[in-house]
Every structure is written in structure tokens, then in C-alpha cells.
């Protein structure tokens, strides 16, 4: 405890340096603006800004990018509440009651509760990260290739189980992502695989062009030509204060959403999206008046907003402690750190304590910045929503091209981005979830290496995965999740808990 406190003080001594504070502010502002733009979620925003961080020191780079991440999560809720347009996928549930509150003239309290919930959840998430990551990192030092294989397999099964859509489709998309990850030079044999004679593909398919294509370009292809609402409310500062009753109703959902979001955030997958759906479902079930949901219930804003922000923090636990990205966003963050020659993982906290604790402290700072920045400036930010979409999307497209190209100065990356954009557009038409593709892509090299090393260690005996206690436990957990997930497919009358918590709607969104 004392050691954690001392480390945190070290972190604050770094995060409160004036130039780092400036970058935290800049990241939060850019993120908020990015999150408010349809088609530019946190992932696209971080990807586009990534090349600009190459010249910065690693602490500043990660502070800036995590500011963008949090800002984008908050910005998405603003458009959801005021215009019923989720700036990013995690804000879909906020649309339901947030926009109804706006129609009832309660946009201000909805925005305020979203901000307060995000702040509280972000803080809970950071505290969780602070205590859990070092423990997990110490434990992970005992991991060998079989444990890593089991962990990744368990993650993929849990992802399929938690997915809002069809489990089979989610697993198929994870398989597609893993297959994309096979492109390039095989680290163990030196063979160049599936490169079609294109030299640039020797390095593999990058996460940035795939992520920007799947999430940014496909969104524009689906929505280009759509009209935007021209009547956007601009709440004033005095309108933001929630009533005593609204505040009382929000306390429970914020607390539950924060805890739930953090726990879901640790699991691989689109944690922040899933957590907001689950939180909404739980609040609806716990409410004494569930009929108010969908009509402007403030609990329907407080719970999901808290959950998706806590999940955003939770996702950093496996990233920092194990060096494993559990979402496309953390995969890009890992890329940002690795550019500076630093590998996240169990040894990061001992070898680079100033980076880890500086990052943790900057998350506290970022949460405070978001709270004091976004509420007073919400009237200013909503001006962005007045720009007609016909002017906005060409700019977003140019930013996507710019961001993708500048990561490696490679035209091939732009072609990959465009192909992925078209693929994402088609897959969305058939209700396939896209996040597992990006996740599979980033997990593929780690999974392949650990699987082949495990087999080499055991002279080709797959029993190595059941002979080691940690590995067999993780495999068993993954298998249980898998069996639960296929139960509704086999027994058609089987009750699926996901339907109870509102996840059945995720596929359609």
C-alpha cells in the first residue's frame, strides 16, 4: 500500500509537469471533438494522431493518446444526448434515454450526469488499474507460452460469449482477423506468407489501416448522403444542474456501471460497447419503474455512460500488465509505446516505473480535465454539430487517408484501408461485428508464436495445455463460456441471459 502510494506520487510528479498537462488538455479537447464526429470514433482519432506522437517522449505520447481516448468517449455521449447520433458505438445506449430527455427539455441534466458518471467511473477505473495491474503483472511473470496460448484462447471465447450478435459470426470474424495476421514474414522460420509479391506486406498488415478502414471508412460509406439535424440545442451552464431527484436516481446506476464496466473492460473484446449494453439492461431490470426506460429515464444515461468509461480504463489493465491488447484501441496504444522501444508487459512496471505511474496519474488528471472542460464548454463544442455532414465527411475521409499514410509513409496502407472499408461496409450489411477482426489481427502473432513454442516445448503433445494448472484453468473457463454460448443455438428454448440484459439489440446497431 505504502509502495503504491509512493509510486503514485512519482506518477503525479510527472503528470503535473506543465508541458504534460498541456498535452493532457490538448488530448481531451481533440478527443471530445473526434468523439462528436460521426465516423471518427476513439480508434480512428488515435490512429490519425499516432504519427504525430512519434517525435514526442513516450510519456507525453501516451498521455496525449489516452486523453484522446477519454475525450472521444465523452464526446460520443454529447451527440447521443443532443442529436440521437452516437458519435461512437459505445454511446448507442445513451441515445435511447438521453435524446428523450433532450426532447423533454432536460438535455442539460443528461449531459451533466453523463459527465459526472464518466468522471466517477474513470476514477474507479484508474484506482482499479493502480491496484490490479501490478498484482497481475507479478502473477504474469509465471506465464510461459502455454499460459499465453490459453489466455488468448479464453479471451476469444469470452469475446464470442459476450458479443451482442451471433456467437458464430463473432468467432468467424475473430478467425478472419487471425488469418489477416498471418500475412507477412513468419517470425520463427523467416518465410514470407500471403504477400502476393508486395514487399510492404512482408511487415504484415498493420492495425491502423485495418482499424481506420473497418470503423472509419465503412461508417462513412454507410452514412454518406445522410442529412444531419439542423436544430441542435445549446444548453447553458445554469441548465446543466440536475434536480435532487435526478441526482438521487443516478447514484446507484453510476456506482454499478463503474464496477461492472471495469470488470468487463479487462476482458478482450469491444468491452466499452458491451458494458454499456449490459449496464442499460441491468438498470432496466433493477428499476421499480422499467416502463420509464426509453421515455427519458436518467438511469439509462447514468449507467451506460459510467460503464463505458470504466471499461475504457479497465482495458488498460491487461495492456499494461500482460502486454496483451484487449481491444483495437489498446492495440494502437501499444504500437505508440513500442515505437519508442518500450514493450508493455509484466516487466514494464519495474523497468519503466515513471512511464507506468506517470500514465496512471495522467489518467486522474485527464478525468478532472474532462469534467472541468466539457461541462462549461459544451455550448462551444456543439457548434461542431452545426456543420452539415456533407461538408464534414470529405474532411473525415481526408483525415483517414492522412493518418493511415503517415504511420509508415506507405501507399499500400491506404489501399488496405480502402479494401477494409469496403469489406466493413459489406460485413455490416450482413450484421457481422467488426471489432473481432481488428482484435484477431493484433492477437495473431502472439497466439501463433505461443502455440508453436508450446508445441515445441512438449515435443508436439497438446497435453501440455492440460498439465499446467494456470493454462488448464483458463482453457476450462473458455470452454465453459463456449458451451454456455452455444446452448441457445442447440436448445432453442434455452434462456440466454444476454437477451435479459439488452444485448440482443447490439447486433442491429
Amino acid at each position, binding site marked *: 500500500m505504502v509502495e503504491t502510494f509512493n509510486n503514485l506520487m512519482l506518477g503525479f510528479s510527472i503528470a503535473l509537469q506543465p508541458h504534460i498537462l498541456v498535452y493532457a488538455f490538448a488530448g481531451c479537447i481533440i478527443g471530445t471533438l473526434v468523439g462528436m464526429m460521426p465516423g471518427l470514433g476513439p480508434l480512428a482519432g488515435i490512429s490519425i494522431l499516432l*504519427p*504525430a506522437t*512519434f*517525435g514526442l517522449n513516450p510519456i507525453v505520447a501516451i498521455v496525449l493518446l489516452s486523453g484522446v481516448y477519454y475525450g472521444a468517449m465523452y464526446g460520443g455521449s454529447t451527440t447521443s444526448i443532443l442529436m440521437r447520433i452516437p458519435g461512437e458505438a459505445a454511446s448507442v445506449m445513451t441515445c435511447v434515454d438521453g435524446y428523450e430527455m433532450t426532447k423533454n427539455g432536460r438535455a442539460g441534466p443528461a449531459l451533466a450526469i453523463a459527465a459526472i458518471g464518466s468522471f466517477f467511473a474513470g476514477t474507479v477505473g484508474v484506482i482499479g488499474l493502480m491496484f490490479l495491474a501490478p498484482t497481475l503483472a507479478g502473477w504474469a511473470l509465471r506465464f510461459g507460452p502455454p499460459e499465453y496460448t490459453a489466455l488468448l484462447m479464453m479471451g476469444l471465447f469470452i469475446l464470442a460469449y459476450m458479443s451482442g450478435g*451471433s456467437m*458464430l*459470426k463473432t*468467432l*468467424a470474424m475473430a*478467425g*478472419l482477423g*487471425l*488469418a489477416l495476421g*498471418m500475412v507477412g514474414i*513468419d517470425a520463427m*522460420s523467416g*518465410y514470407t*506468407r*500471403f504477400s502476393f509479391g508486395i514487399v510492404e506486406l512482408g511487415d504484415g498488415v498493420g492495425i491502423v489501416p485495418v482499424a481506420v478502414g473497418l470503423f472509419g*471508412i465503412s461508417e*462513412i*460509406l*454507410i452514412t*454518406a*448522403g445522410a442529412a444531419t439535424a439542423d436544430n441542435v440545442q445549446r444548453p447553458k451552464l445554469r441548465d446543466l444542474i440536475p434536480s435532487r431527484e435526478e441526482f438521487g436516481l443516478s447514484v446507484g446506476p453510476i456506482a454499478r456501471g463503474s464496477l461492472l464496466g471495469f470488470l468487463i473492460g479487462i476482458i478482450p473484446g469491444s468491452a466499452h460497447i458491451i458494458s454499456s449494453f449490459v449496464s442499460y439492461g441491468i438498470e432496466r431490470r433493477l428499476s421499480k419503474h422499467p416502463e420509464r426506460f426509453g421515455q427519458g429515464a436518467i438511469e439509462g444515461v447514468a449507467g451506460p455512460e459510467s460503464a463505458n468509461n470504466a471499461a475504457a480504463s479497465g482495458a488498460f489493465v491487461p495492456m499494461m500488465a500482460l502486454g496483451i491488447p484487449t481491444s483495437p484501441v489498446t492495440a494502437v496504444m501499444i504500437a505508440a509505446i513500442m515505437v519508442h522501444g518500450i514493450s508493455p508487459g509484466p516487466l514494464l512496471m519495474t523497468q519503466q516505473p515513471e512511464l507506468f505511474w506517470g500514465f496512471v496519474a495522467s489518467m486522474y488528471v485527464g478525468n478532472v480535465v474532462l469534467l472541468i472542460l466539457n461541462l462549461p464548454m459544451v455550448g462551444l463544442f456543439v457548434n461542431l454539430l452545426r456543420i452539415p455532414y*456533407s*461538408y464534414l*465527411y*470529405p*474532411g473525415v*475521409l*481526408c*483525415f483517414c*487517408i*492522412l493518418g493511415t*499514410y*503517415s504511420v509508415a*509513409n506507405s*501507399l499500400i496502407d*491506404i*489501399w488496405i484501408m*480502402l479494401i477494409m*472499408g*469496403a469489406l466493413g*461496409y459489406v460485413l455490416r*450489411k*450482413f*450484421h*457481422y461485428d467488426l471489432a473481432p477482426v481488428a482484435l484477431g489481427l493484433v492477437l495473431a502473432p502472439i497466439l*501463433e508464436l505461443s502455440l*508453436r513454442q508450446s*508445441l*515445441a516445448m*512438449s*515435443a*508436439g*503433445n*497438446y497435453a501440455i495445455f492440460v498439465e499446467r494448472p494456470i493454462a488448464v484453468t483458463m482453457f476450462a473457463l473458455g470452454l465453459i463460456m463456449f458451451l454456455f454460448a452455444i446452448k441457445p*443455438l442447440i436448445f*432453442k428454448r434455452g434462456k440466454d441471459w444476454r437477451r435479459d440484459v439488452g444485448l440482443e439489440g447490439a447486433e442491429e446497431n
Partner: protein
Amino acid sequence: MDRDSAQMPRGLRSDQFSGLLLVALALYIGWANLEYPIGSLSEPGPGYMPLLLAIFLGAMGLLIAFWGGYSRPLRDVRWPEAVRAAIIIVACGVGAFALERIGYRLTVIGLMIFFLGVMERKKPLPVVLVAVGFGVISFYVVADLLNVPLPRSPWGL
């Protein structure tokens, strides 16, 4: 997969179609993977993991197609924005082709003029002002302020 649509007319269903496409992709991966040695269980080669993934992807595709009988009919999948989407993709492709030849600023100005002027049919003056402003300002911010190298045209633009 929506079982409520069980009363819909016969014909290929959307999930059956997408599942079969996944099977075709898996077969292609398996075929392309023949080029690489599979190795043995104790020493898996570079073709080992792709083969496992091709089998997995094919199995998932078959299961999706198998359980896809209750999904909506393929002809009910609507593509109202497909032409517009195709034009956007082609325009971006032309932009990618031009980027290193005529530089970032001219490419972006050209793309913005196309999207705003041709696709969105905005008035010429705002189109030119927005296109030139966006191209020049974004170059200044990204290349000059953030020091990210961006391609210039042979004429220095």
C-alpha cells in the same frame, strides 16, 4: 439469427450466403497455404497456423450457413447507398494514386473539390474556399507544426 422471419418466402438467406462466402475464403486460404511447409506437431512450420485457421474459418462458415435458414432472405438486404459508396472508394483510390505524385495539398484539394462540388453539388465559391483552406491548413498543422513528413508535389506544393 432471426427466427421470426421463418414465415418468409423460400430462397437463399443472408446468413447462408455470407456463411458460404466464408467457406470459399477458407478454401482459398487452404489452397494458398499449400505453398508453405506445415511441419510436424513438435516443429510446426509456417503453414501450420494458417491451416488451422482455414479449418476454423471454414467450420464457422458452414455453421453460419447451416443455422442461417431462419435469417432474412438475401434479396431483402438493401444497398441504397452502394453506388455512392463505390464512388467514394474509387475517388479515394485515385487520391491514393495521386498522393505521392502531386503531393498532399493538391491531392486533398482535388478530393475535396470532387466530394463537395461533384458529389454534394455545393456552390463553387464555398467549395473552393473549403477545399483550399482544408488542404493548406491541415498540411500546415500536420507537416509543419507536428513534423509529420507528408509528400510534396514536384513543384514544391
